[in-house]
Every structure is written in C-alpha cells, then in structure tokens.
C-alpha cells in the first residue's frame, strides 16, 4: 500500500484498502483555528457536552492575530470560553501559524491521520502524516464523533532527481510542478514526493512542498518519514515512530520523474498558482510590496536566505518589504541568529507571526493596481486585498531579491546558494 492507503487502512480498522473505496476513519489529530468558534457553538447548540477526545484536539488562533477588529476579538473570546468548556488542553494561543506550530511543537507524528479546518493541512505530510483540510460542518461532526468518511485516493508519486543549481529552493520545485502538470494533477488524489532531491530536503523545505500539494489539488501530500524526520522530531515528539513510508510493492496511479538539474527559479503569475514561468521569461515587473510570510515560506531557513540576500543592501524605495515569521518561535530563533536585525537594517517591516496578509486578513493588504511578490501559496484574484492588484508567487529568495531591486529579478543576482543540497 502507498502511505495514504496505509494511514486510511489503519484508521478504518482494515488490513488493506484500495483507491476508490469509502471508509470511515478515526482521526489521530484534529486541528482547529478560528473556525473552532463556529464549530464549538454548533456543538453547544446540539447539546454536545464532551468532545470525542479533547486530548486529540488542538486549537490555535492564527488567522486574525493580532486581532484586527473588535468582531474578531469577540470571536477569540468565544473560542477561549469554548476551549475551557470542552476541556481542550492543547490550546496553543497565538504561537504562530497553525501548520508551522503543530509541526514544530511535535503534535504530529509520522503515519497520523490529521484533519484540520484549513486546506493547507496537507503540510503535515512533511513529517509523513496524512493531513487534509475540511470545512466547518465536517469539523463539527469530527469533534463530536472522532470519525469521518473518506474516499481512498489513488496516489501519484513525484520522484525528484538531479542536481539543483544555485538560487533554488523547494518552492521553485513545487511551482515548477504546478506549471508543468497544472493545478488539477492531483485532484482527488494523494501525492508522495520522493527521490534523492526530496530525501536531501530539510523538514522546512518539505513543508513548503507538502503545503502546496493542495495547490496541485491533492487530498494528502506526503514525504516518507526518514532519518531527516527522525532528527527533526527528536525532542519534539517523543512517541514518534522512527520511520514511515510506503510498502515496497505499493501501487501508484502514475510515477513522474522530475529532473531538477538546470531548473531556474520559478514564479507564478497572476491570478493562478499554476500560471508559472521561469524568472527569465517575465520581462519588467515593478513591485510595490514584497511579502515574506505564511505557512508556505516563513520558516527559519527562509528568513536566513532573505537575510543573506538583504545583508548590506537596502529595500528599494518604491517597494515595501513585509516579513511575517511563521511562528513566534521562528521569530525568536531568527532574532537570536541575527536575521531580524539584518532585515530591519535593510528596511524590512517585521510583523507579529500569524496568517496576516496571506489570506487578505490584515497587516499588508494590497490596493488596486499594486503588484505584490509573495512567498505564499495562492495568488487568486482578490486573495490579498484588491481584485485589481496583481500577486506573483515566488521563493523567499525571489521575494528578497525583488525587495532589493524594486522589480522581479533573478535571485541568483544576489545569492548563489541553494537550500536543496
């Protein structure tokens, strides 16, 4: 069985499952962000006194933090009351963006089935967990029962091979997949990322690719839990199994071999993550806002690359650089490492950690006619503010380079490194 099949077989109490089957699964971990307020109120109105297992439920308030409006603040007040009422121990407050925090605090184990009120729950695949996003009503059902029906997806395998050149990050690889295969390639499917390039990736780089698995349409986007995972989870997640991967005879719907050698930095142009071009094919694009944030790309590794590019340079006068670290811990570690000072010296504005501008919530929405280069995962029309704004997606290196140049440029002009080897 593939990784997805193994998770769904175990959680549905079967020896094996096959693609297309409907199974009822017991979840291992449940993640709720602000949506918890509505789910909790719904449960209360149904007279539900106890959740299926409060210790498997994690609540974190990240989308509207720091609260931009009084209404959002009210939502947070209700969420806190409900957390107490339902005796949820794992309330993570405002520790940062949900997917980053759950992973860095060791709440997710390889092989887990994780359902979250957020489409980028696929991110947990970076540590070998099957994570998927669900909506409010389904979450209400899960919180009450611990179960949900799922269809077993066929699995696509992307074998990433070759030698990444300078300037490359995992974001470029996943944007390349979106450009080559389209944003529906994994619709109703699971993804396994594998091959030597995947094996060498840090957990941070894997999180970027698992995160954007949902932009390829996927239900789950998994990396095998290997020695890199084991090292990462050591001290974070004591009861994590050391390894989790597919069976040797696993059957895939398709196996795609992707050669990374010679790949240029990639950018998704407005208004779709699949509208991808190599940076050299873009022409002149002047940038008003460079945004380094979100669960896709605002980890320590990303801030380090940005600091390397901005060290001794200045943000271009026509551009504002906003940095929103993926978690409070990342913020602290970046400060200890000296990255935040470097970024501030260059003229960056650093915000509290949370979703911020990514979904057009607060702290950096863009206006009509403005152009933004963003390290996030989606550039749909209107997502980051005005429907008349244009949002480009790129790696942290591409965002930092654009901040210096005031226009989209090849990050290799400023940075010869790569996070991929």
């Amino acid at each position, binding site marked *: 069985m593939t990784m997805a099949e193994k998770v769904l077989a175990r959680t549905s109490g079967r020896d094996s499952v096959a693609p297309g089957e409907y199974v009822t699964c017991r979840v291992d971990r449940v993640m709720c962000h602000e949506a918890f307020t509505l789910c909790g109120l719904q449960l209360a109105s*149904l007279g539900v006194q106890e959740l299926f297992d409060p210790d498997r439920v994690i609540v974190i308030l990240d989308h509207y933090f720091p609260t931009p409006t009084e209404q959002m603040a009210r939502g947070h007040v209700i969420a806190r009351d409900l957390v107490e009422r339902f005796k949820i121990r794992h309330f993570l407050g405002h520790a940062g963006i949900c997917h980053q925090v759950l992973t860095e605090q060791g709440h997710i184990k390889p092989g887990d089935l994780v359902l979250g009120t*957020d489409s980028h729950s696929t991110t947990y695949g970076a540590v070998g967990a099957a994570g998927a996003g669900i909506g409010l009503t*389904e979450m209400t059902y899960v919180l009450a029962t611990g179960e949900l029906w799922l269809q077993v997806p066929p699995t696509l395998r992307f074998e990433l091979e070759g030698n990444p050149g300078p300037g490359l990050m995992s974001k470029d690889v996943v944007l390349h997949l979106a450009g080559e295969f389209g944003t529906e390639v994994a619709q109703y499917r699971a993804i396994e990322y594998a091959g030597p390039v995947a094996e060498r990736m840090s957990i941070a780089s894997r999180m970027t690719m698992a995160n954007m698995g949902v932009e390829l349409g996927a239900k789950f986007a998994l990396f095998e839990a290997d020695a890199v995972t084991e090292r990462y989870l050591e001290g974070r997640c004591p009861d994590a199994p050391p390894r989790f991967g597919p069976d040797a005879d696993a059957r895939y719907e398709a196996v795609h071999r992707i050669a990374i050698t010679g790949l240029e930095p990639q950018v998704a142009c407005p208004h779709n993550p699949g509208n991808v071009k190599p940076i050299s094919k873009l022409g002149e694009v002047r940038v008003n806002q460079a945004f380094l944030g979100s669960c896709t790309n605002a980890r320590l590794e990303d801030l380090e690359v940005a600091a390397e590019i901005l060290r001794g340079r200045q943000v271009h006068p026509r551009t504002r650089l906003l940095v929103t670290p993926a978690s409070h811990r990342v913020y602290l570690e970046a400060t200890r490492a000296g990255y935040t000072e470097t970024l501030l010296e260059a003229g960056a504005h650093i915000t509290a950690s949370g979703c911020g501008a990514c979904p057009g919530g607060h702290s950096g929405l863009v206006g009509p006619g403005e152009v933004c280069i963003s390290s996030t995962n989606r550039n749909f029309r209107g997502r980051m503010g005005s429907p008349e704004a244009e949002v480009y997606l790129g790696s942290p290196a591409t965002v930092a380079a654009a901040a210096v140049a005031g226009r989209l440029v090849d990050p290799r002009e400023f940075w010869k490194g790569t996070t991929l080897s």
Partner: protein
Amino acid sequence: MERLIRGRVWKFGHNVDTDVMAPWNTISEPWETRRKTGLHIRPECVERVQPGDLVVAGRNWGCSSSREHAPENLKLLGIGAVVAESFGRIYFRNSIAIAFPNLACPGIHEGCEEGDELEIDVRTGQIQNLTRKMSFQAQPFTPEILSILEKGGLLNVLRERLGVAAPDSTGSP
C-alpha cells in the same frame, strides 16, 4: 432535497476559486453583506439570480480554501445545484455536508450555454439540457453521499446519531 432539479443556467469558466465565491474579509459578515460581495467575478449574477437557478462550470470549480462559506453563499443565493466538469475536493465535501447538490459531469461545459434550462436527476446523475435537447450523465453520487444529501446534510446525520431532533428538514445553515 428534491430529486428533480430544474433551472436556468449561469455559466462560469475553469478554476473558479473559493476566494472569489467568498472573499476572506467578508466571511464573518452577515449574509446581507456577503450577498453583495460574493462571486465578484460576475457581480451581475448576484444581482439577477433567481431562486432555483443553476450554475454550470468548467474544471476545478471551488478550488482553494476550506471555507464552507463558498458553497454556502451559493446555496443562500438560491442556486439549486452546480454542475461542473470537476471540483476542488474540499469545496465538494463541504457542499455535501451542507446538502447542496454539486455534480461532476464531463462534457457539460461544452454542452451548455448561459440561459439554457437543465433538468437534473440528483439520484441517478442524469442531466437533460431541455433547451438544446441534449442529455448528459454526471457521476452518480454514492449511496453514502446520497444519504447525507437526503438527510439534509451532515449536521442532521450528527443529530440523528446524538438523538437530537432536527430543527427543519432542509438542513440549511
């Protein structure tokens, strides 16, 4: 849920995402506000839609986020059903959970124009384009999904499981 749904078509293209159906900065607003700001790629549709109208779309309708407001906004607008070539998977699940019929039907985008009248058999997935005298076969719902739709959504399934009476039979949120 009605077995036969009949209505007039609003036609959309491919990859229409949930941010367009329910922009993030509106989803905590009351319905009157959401009504005006939803589906901003076709504001005239929001103005002129009649209860029972249908949406026909291309591939990947509802891609993107897990916000349930996307199908909910369409349902509250009075859209009777959506027929698309394919769906974003979370949107699709959410539509089932709130008992809003969304059918995947290869060929529908080509075979249908704005204003056409369709008749949809939700149980069998048979679709007639009454204007063009053409028929289509959507992927039929599995018995599991059909049962959630027929009970008026997943909350009613939960009510049944908890032994709580349902407030009404429509399961509307």
